[in-house]
């Protein structure tokens, strides 16, 4: 049996299973009960590489279902993994519903509960052409022969579904892969990611070739850069790493109201970011479904920051209820799911000239708020990072620690954004393969602070 046939089977099988189980569960509700049901499923092959060889390979087939019961003003949510067999899974889910009912009987009232509504119906399926499991390793390692390559191939089907007792029904299935990798010359390394829905040997070779070119630049003499403030170019992937912090409380309405937002000053119009900066949630990127866990739909394009001013925070319906705000389809965590950053005027070919003397950073690493009230972030440089003088790459640097406020880096210190932007698909695999990602240009920032 070919792997391609097996994968198509999985989408159909999970859809049918979800429909059967959810119809049954919804038919068992009492009059004063409302239910939201979510399914998250995947059929994935993970292959981990070290030294262009296989460290571990893991096939994972999983179907997880969650039910949220709202009854008598109380809210209870329970989820479990399912074996995929209707005879076994139906009683397992009825048991879950019974447990929810038991808790409803003893929990206090939930005043911030949002009543369940029918937010409509949607269905999207994206089929891909992936390598058969047996062919993955050969296809990855052959073009990389002679490279010290480390990384992860993940490929297969990812499914999200949602329905509720008001008749709402959403479905999203996609068949994709990514090869998130880095290549090494001793301690020096360059990072790449090849992702898509159709594996092409030619595309993989050219992707690897670009990363090899970057690695070759690291062979120049290593530069000893002292801590200090330097003009710095963040390549798109590095800028995406920096903007990733916006998903860590900065754009969350709940975090703002609860005193936890590093963007309180921005939210209260006490400050603005650079007029060069505009950020949207843009579901047209096609990386993730528009519906959230309650089945609410975000606008296809939702402006978050426009020319440096905050247009809106991400507001979930629960936060909206508690603080009397307008909800905008945000997920419960109120982080961006499909961040799209507007490009600027700096051509890729002019980046080194515009940088003049300073640092060229391909990637950042391990970011964290160091002083949240000041929106200050610390992190490290990682992979291919260079010292540049007079518009020419002089040589690679040793990793540097930096510590900089986003109010500055995205504000008065932001000099230019590039005309080109890169899509950075989510490659998270905690618990399950993630959906989503972002699209960001490169950014030229003046006087970026390096501390160690």
């Amino acid at each position, binding site marked *: 049996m070919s792997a391609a046939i097996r994968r198509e089977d999985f989408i159909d099988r999970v859809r049918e299973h979800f429909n059967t189980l959810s119809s049954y569960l919804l038919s068992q509700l009492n009059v004063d009960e409302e239910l939201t049901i979510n399914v998250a499923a995947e059929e994935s092959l993970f292959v981990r590489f*070290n030294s262009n*060889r296989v460290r571990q390979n893991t096939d994972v087939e999983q179907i997880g279902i969650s039910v949220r019961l709202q009854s008598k003003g109380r809210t209870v949510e329970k989820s*479990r993994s399912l074996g995929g067999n209707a005879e076994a899974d139906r009683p397992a889910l009825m048991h879950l519903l019974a447990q929810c009912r038991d808790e409803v009987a003893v929990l*206090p009232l939930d005043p911030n509960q949002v009543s369940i509504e029918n937010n409509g119906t949607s269905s999207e399926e994206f089929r891909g052409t992936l390598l058969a499991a047996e062919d993955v390793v050969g296809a990855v390692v052959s073009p990389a022969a002679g490279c010290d390559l480390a990384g992860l191939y993940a490929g297969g089907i990812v499914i999200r579904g949602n329905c509720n007792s008001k008749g709402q029904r959403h479905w999203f299935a996609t068949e994709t892969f990514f090869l998130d*990798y880095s290549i090494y010359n001793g301690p020096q390394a360059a990072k790449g990611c090849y992702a898509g829905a159709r594996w092409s040997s030619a595309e993989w070779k050219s992707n690897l070739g670009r990363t090899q070119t970057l690695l070759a630049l690291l062979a120049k003499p290593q530069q000893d850069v002292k801590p200090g403030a330097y003009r710095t170019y963040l390549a798109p992937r590095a800028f995406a790493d920096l903007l990733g912090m916006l998903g860590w409380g900065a754009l969350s309405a709940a975090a703002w109201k609860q005193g936890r937002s590093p963007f309180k000053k921005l939210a209260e119009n006490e400050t603005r970011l650079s007029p060069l900066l505009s950020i949207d949630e843009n579901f047209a990127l096609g990386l993730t479904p528009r519906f959230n866990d309650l089945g609410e739909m975000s606008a296809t394009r939702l402006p978050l920051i426009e020319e440096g001013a905050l247009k809106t925070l991400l507001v979930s319906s629960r936060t909206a209820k508690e603080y009397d705000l307008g909800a905008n389809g945000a997920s419960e965590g109120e982080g961006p799911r499909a961040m799209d950053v507007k490009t600027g005027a700096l051509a890729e070919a002019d980046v080194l000239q515009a940088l003049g003397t300073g640092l060229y950073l391909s990637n950042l*690493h*391990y970011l*964290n708020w160091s002083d949240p009230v000041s929106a200050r972030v610390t992190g490290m440089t990682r992979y291919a990072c260079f010292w540049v003088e007079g518009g020419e790459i002089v040589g690679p640097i040793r990793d540097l620690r930096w510590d900089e406020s986003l109010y500055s880096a995205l504000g008065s210190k932001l000099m230019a954004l590039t005309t080109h932007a890169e899509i950075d698909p989510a490659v998270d695999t905690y618990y399950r393969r993630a959906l989503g990602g972002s699209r960001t240009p490169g950014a030229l920032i003046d006087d970026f602070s390096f501390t160690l």
Partner: protein
Amino acid sequence: MLSISIPHEQALQRALQFTDWAAIRYSSETTTHRMVRNDRPESNESSLEEGAMCEVLVGGHFGYAATADLSLSGLQRAFDRAIATTRATSAHKVHAFTPDQRPRATGTYCSARDRDLDALSVAEITDCLMAASQAMRLSDLLVNRSARAMLVQTQIDYFSSNGSETRQSFNMLDITLAATAAEGLESQTRSWSYTGQFGGEAFDRAIFQENAERIAREALDLLRADNCPSGRMDLVLMPDQMMLQIHESIGHPLELDRILGDERNYAGWSFVKQEDFGHLQYGSPLMNVSFDPGRAHELASYDFDDGGNRATREMLIEYGVLKRGLGSLESQVRSGLPGVANFRSASWNRAPIDRMANINLEPGTSSLDELIGQVEHGVLMRTNRSWSIDDYRNKFQFGCEYGQLIENGVLGKVVRNPNYRGVTVDFWNRLDGVGRAAETHGTAFCGKGEPSQIIRVGHASPPCLFRDVEVFGGLS
């Protein structure tokens, strides 16, 4: 929690027709999250993750397939997938393994607890969380008062074709109370956590209230406090920050799979080299660090790792000298170095990798007052709030919730936004005092691996004194 019976014998027998060795790791984990915020229920959720990892050895390469279909045909299908993929990948394996990396093991483990978590009612938990939330209501400036509990009940049963049969049952808790005080643009959060292998006995209303009230008061103090001063000075770290210091700058760099390069594309490599074991002066002679899976109530205690290796206490660093790495039997045979039983997976759907477990800094001889008494000018810091370190585990920067100045051997006023930075080996060689009273902490959220895994780790440590460290405060 009861182990369910899965048809492991038949599934293993059939797999052996196609492989040299096979195993099944059944895992069932129920995680319950309950949270009260500002005296209202915020969430009441639970999840059950139940499934089996089918493991095969084909052509000297271990490969895996995970399924939640625990019927014989479900397990057989997973074995078929594992065998087909592993047959195709084994020609490209990093190392030729043998069943020696999966020793025969039999036995059972059960977390120490006075009262099973199953015996705890929803009302009892909610009552403690609500009491904590209410106890934090000292002022309108306390804009967010949260009390959350995560209860984890785990069963891991491991069966292999060479006769292993281990059954381990865990009760674990992670309780966090947090108070945020805000005024104008300023805001400060203070928290208290209680983490480990405990049962229902941990839900003691009085303890919740006492800690809730204390952190609420401390959050208000922080709101009015000056920023932590900047400059080089002595630093006393309390156990709830030592935990993070140990985790990031000892635990991760000693993981043998990192040293072998497996993790280079994700969490990173390590400054520690294979030839450093037995030689490297990692820290001052006061530094003794153990891997201790046998400590009752610490979060990552267990009897067997997920490769059937019996877990024993081992010294990693003695009198400041690096002795042993955190590597499973697979990493040990690849590197030729001694290791520990730390081949652990996050769930039924992930393959085991080298993880930390309980990594503890052994107590010294000083009281806390004696440590403070040795400081002319410095800061004492409590409770981690910010963490960042490079991919070789050298240059770190950590921040804490709560600081107090020390002048001429006396603990003084509270300071906010205390941070410090340093480089790992240089920093540990500045260790000049180790307390005698250890506290046990841990985190349920250590991330690593490809595909990624979140795992639980424990860290016991006394307070410690470090000399001449770069300290700094916030901007606001």
